[in-house]
């Protein structure tokens, strides 16, 4: 009724303008840059990494980073107990630490979305049955169960990726179902049905476009969870196994030298933290950017606060 609501009727902005706005949002920009850096590190690891991550040099064992006494510019972040270059290991570790979330989230996203679509669109008994299973899975003791499974089945890249995707597919299913249900309630969907549009057309033309942005945001957010879970499992010895390397595994190995060579845990851990923070910032921004109502609300709530601060 008041003039504000009638004044800001712009529900949809061109996506080009949306992309431009990320540049103006410092936190989102930070997230994007961090991710770009890590992704390119993973893609071009052999080019970027100064040394071979598995090359041992027992003469140069446990060298401290460059800034500390005894550190050298050859090993910027020091070396481990076998004389391997920490920086090179981190750059290479990005490959596994970023592929695992990519694979797990893709698996979970595709499966979860399919299940959610089925539940949301069919409704009735099928919906009730599926959602009962999903609810039950939400009450499972997550990490502990994953540990048990990995202990029995044996950890490998694929078992790890699958176990991690088993822990999160329900999130996609629940969200997809919710989105489908609320989109089905939309008046323009009913209007389309009333002019005689077929169910397939309604699904593809009117409902599906509402799913992409939120699901993409969810996928970004869930990959942060997967990175943390992979790191924790690898740290506990049930994730990535040597000679492969991941950040969590490096921390686990460095743990034995925590008193004498703390840089062995500091830097790989920092890599995890920065990656997850970057993803979380991006997800926060995406959520606001994808939802015009939300962004208008934020604008009203905090005149010029950066949108990603909404968490």
């Amino acid at each position, binding site marked *: *009724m*008041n*003039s*504000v609501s*009638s*004044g*800001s009727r*712009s529900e949809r902005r061109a996506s080009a303008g949306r992309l431009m706005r990320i540049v103006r949002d410092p936190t989102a920009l930070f997230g994007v840059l961090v991710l770009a850096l890590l992704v390119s590190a993973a893609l071009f690891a052999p080019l970027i990494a100064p040394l071979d991550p598995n090359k041992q040099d027992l003469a140069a064992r446990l060298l401290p980073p460059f800034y500390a006494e005894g550190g050298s510019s050859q090993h910027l972040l020091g070396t481990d107990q076998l004389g391997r270059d920490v920086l090179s290991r981190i750059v290479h570790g990005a490959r596994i630490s970023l592929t695992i979330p990519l694979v797990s989230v893709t698996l979970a996203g595709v499966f979860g979305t399919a299940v959610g679509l089925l539940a949301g669109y069919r409704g009735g008994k099928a919906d009730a049955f599926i959602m009962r299973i999903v609810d039950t899975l939400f009450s499972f003791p997550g990490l502990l169960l994953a540990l048990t499974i990995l202990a029995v089945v044996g950890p490998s890249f694929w078992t790890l990726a699958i176990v991690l995707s088993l822990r999160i597919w329900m999130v996609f299913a629940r969200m997809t179902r919710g989105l489908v249900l609320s989109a089905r309630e939309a008046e323009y969907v009913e209007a389309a049905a009333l002019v005689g549009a077929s169910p397939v057309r309604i699904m593809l033309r009117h409902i599906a476009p509402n799913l992409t942005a939120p699901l993409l945001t969810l996928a970004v957010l869930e990959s942060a969870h997967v990175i943390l879970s992979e790191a924790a499992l690898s740290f506990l010895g049930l994730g990535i196994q040597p000679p492969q390397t991941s950040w969590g595994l490096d921390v686990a190995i460095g743990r034995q030298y925590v008193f004498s060579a703390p840089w062995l845990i500091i830097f790989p851990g920092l890599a995890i933290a920065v990656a997850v923070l970057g993803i979380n910032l991006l997800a926060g921004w995406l959520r606001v950017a994808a939802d015009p109502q939300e962004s*208008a609300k934020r*604008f*009203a709530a905090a*005149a010029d606060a950066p949108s990603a601060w909404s968490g």
Partner: protein
Amino acid sequence: MIRSDHLLEIRNLEVVFPTRDGTVQAVRGVSFTVDAGESLGVVGESGSGKSTLARAALGLIELPGRIAGGEILWRGRSLLDKRAARRIRGREISMVSQDPMASMSPILTIGAQMTEVMTRHLDIGKKKALTRAGDLLEKVGIPDPGRRLGQYPFEFSGGMQQRVVIATALSCDPMMLIADEPTTALDVTTQAQILELISSLQKDLGLALVLITHDLGVVAGACDLLKVLYAGQIVESGTADQLFHRPRHPYTAALLRSTPRLDAKADRLMAIDGHPPDLRHVAGGCSFTPRCPHATTRCVSASPVLQPSGPDHEYACWNPLNDRAVQEPPMGRGRA
């Protein structure tokens, strides 16, 4: 202190709301007064600034909105001072808003919400406040108040909820009641009940009433004086009789003619072409010009100001309608 003999005096009020797509000038230089016991109707369509005006009068404009100019005086004291406004809200001026369901907290009992105002403003304890709350409920026509006080808003029907909101508004014996679309969310039979309640309370308690609505029918019975708002400005103001029967501003007249009436069957409604202006980009001149059948070049170049035309009557128009062009029902015969 600025002198004012009126209960409420608003001078040249300007309220703006910055949005991403530009700053909305919601209220643009509005001045008026309300005296004790008066009943004033403020009529306008959505976006006319009527709700903003109500909230401004209570010091309730929230960021990013702000009062960009003017003065609001309550019995001579400025309400632009937040602390003064806080002292007066609920005690001397009360408010009833559009949607009673949204107006009360869904998770607190009616009793808790009625007494919290009293224990703050009146020097009484919780127990006394509760007794008083029960009396008030009875007064607004809610049976079995003792039991009702322990219930939550969702256990009441829409009409009953609005009665509770009214009772709460009256709990500290205010001098003025601002009712912002108090019956818009209600059914017509309930609306009749609530309007009757508000009118009788106003007379019994000697309240000043400011009734804000888009519905001309609602103000016709309840208000003696009227202000017509368009695009954030008062375009005409006067007694209800004057405005309903001898409107001078073309917008007032057009509004009356485009309203269908139950008591008169017209072949055709006289619609106003176009739509209200975008208040983010206000052009000079009279805002109604693009929709006005009597507009001239002068209307585009210069803004008319409110000028008096007889006791209690003002309008802002360069080409006012003839005073004798009496608008008697049934109206709107013939083609647009």
